[in-house]
């Protein structure tokens, strides 16, 4: 088998729900005071179950899989750095040196000392910082906006050479400031992902800053415009992925891509108690838990009835939405199968409707085709031209 990585699976590890912030939109809001955390031994068992599955499927498919561990909370940096050094050492022992893997930590970056800076610098491959720039919704228990503290600590990371990207949660509180948010990240040279609001932890939580699906669509359209128009290539997600999809569609001869959850699941969420959920299903709803990775081998979890139910639900969404969509094949169907921001729009039969990507792709295509001179630009043509075989 070649050493090239062929595919990737991410595990979002909810290591603890405990958090020093009380962000008003947090979908974990009611659990943020809970100090329970995954234990070292539970994580070792998790790794063993993952490794047994990886070894099996890589041998079967003659493929090489990269494993991603996305450490999430709560605030994962409230745990002692020693906890992470131990579990990273356990990864080395259980996966060995040859299994490619990446560790990503998603943090509010309000708690940072020398030990933690060293942990982020040497222990993790990627650091993600949550910062909304506008809105004032990321507050502590006393209701104080801690963004200034986050910005100061981002500066400390830069001074120490720790690379990071950011996630900005899109709400009604900052949706009117997208241009300024983009300016901020662009001038700072910081990559960012715009993440529309998840469903809240309780009824009415989002009342003052909720958005419609159309609001989300318009925000993504604006982000496309900003990316196209602004000088300098900034890595803005999901905009880059969305434009890439349309470029593949326009190119015409790119290999089709179809999301098949039974063939490959790109991401699995592991809750603090080991219960697992896929992204397209209702989070923490016991009916949609696909199994417990502390107690159940991943191979068995994927072979189980719960996972089959989850896969069938995703396939129904794709079948209902994508077969009539001109972008299917360039778009894999993943957005309607799994993305949370398509949850709100329902068909008459109760199924979800792909509103965001379907309309956004049409918008991007229109935007690109509106510039005929661009499409005939010899540099772009050269980029699309088939390369001769080496």
């Amino acid at each position, binding site marked *: 088998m070649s050493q090239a990585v062929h595919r990737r699976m991410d595990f979002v590890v909810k290591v603890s729900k405990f958090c020093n912030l009380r962000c008003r939109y947090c979908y974990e809001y009611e659990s943020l005071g809970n100090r329970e955390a995954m234990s070292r031994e539970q994580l070792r068992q998790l790794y063993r179950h993952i490794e047994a599955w990886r070894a099996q499927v890589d041998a079967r498919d003659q493929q090489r899989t990269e494993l991603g561990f996305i450490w999430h909370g709560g605030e994962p940096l409230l745990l002692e750095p020693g906890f992470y050094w131990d579990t990273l050492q356990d990864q080395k022992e259980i996966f060995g040196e040859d299994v490619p893997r990446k560790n990503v930590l998603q943090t509010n970056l309000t708690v940072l000392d020398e030990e933690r800076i060293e942990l982020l610098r040497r222990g993790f491959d990627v650091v993600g910082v949550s910062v909304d720039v506008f809105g004032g919704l990321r507050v502590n228990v006393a209701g104080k906006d801690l963004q200034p503290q986050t910005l100061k600590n981002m500066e400390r990371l830069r001074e120490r050479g720790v690379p990071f990207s950011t996630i900005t949660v899109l709400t009604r509180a900052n949706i009117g400031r997208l241009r300024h948010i983009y300016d901020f990240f662009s001038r700072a040279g*910081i990559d960012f992902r715009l993440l529309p609001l998840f469903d809240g932890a309780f009824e009415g939580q989002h009342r003052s800053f909720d958005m419609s699906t159309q609001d989300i669509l318009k925000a993504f359209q604006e982000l496309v415009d900003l990316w196209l128009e602004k000088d300098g290539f900034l890595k803005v997600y999901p905009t880059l992925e969305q434009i890439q999809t349309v470029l593949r569609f326009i190119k015409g001869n790119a290999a089709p891509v179809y999301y098949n959850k039974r063939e490959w699941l790109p991401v699995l969420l592991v809750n603090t108690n080991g219960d697992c959920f896929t992204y397209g299903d209702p989070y923490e709803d016991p009916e949609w838990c696909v199994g417990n990775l502390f107690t159940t081998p991943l191979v068995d979890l994927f072979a189980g009835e719960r996972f089959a139910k989850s896969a069938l639900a995703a396939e129904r969404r794709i079948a209902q939405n994508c077969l009539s969509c001109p972008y299917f094949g360039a778009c894999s169907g993943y957005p309607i199968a799994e993305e949370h921001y398509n949850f709100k729009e329902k068909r008459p039969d109760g199924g979800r409707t792909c509103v965001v990507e379907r309309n956004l792709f049409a918008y991007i295509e229109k935007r690109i085709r509106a510039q005929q001179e661009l499409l005939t630009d010899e540099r772009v043509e050269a980029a699309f031209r088939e390369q001769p075989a080496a």
Partner: protein
Amino acid sequence: MKSSSEQYLKYLAALSLSVAAPAVAQPALPQVEAERRPAMERCVSENLQSLAASIEMDEQVPGAAGWPESTHVGRLAQLPNVKRAETNTSLTWLMEDVLLELRAS
């Protein structure tokens, strides 16, 4: 197209017939019109060129042609070296500057 893709599409087609409502064209939401901004086209060209080039590079990755289709999900092509913004700006100062611009606009 790979045979596995063909089988999967046939399966999806059969599935669409088995659900209560057949697949129909989705109603389009009102869209924000794409405006032409001539002064910005140089940047449009440069950014799109970089992304298009990244797709081309991505498809040259050894073994990529044999990847199961689903593994392409969420995968962004390796981006080529691109021009980055200046990174030594104070973020606190930058935030204040953006707020000033916002108040002035």
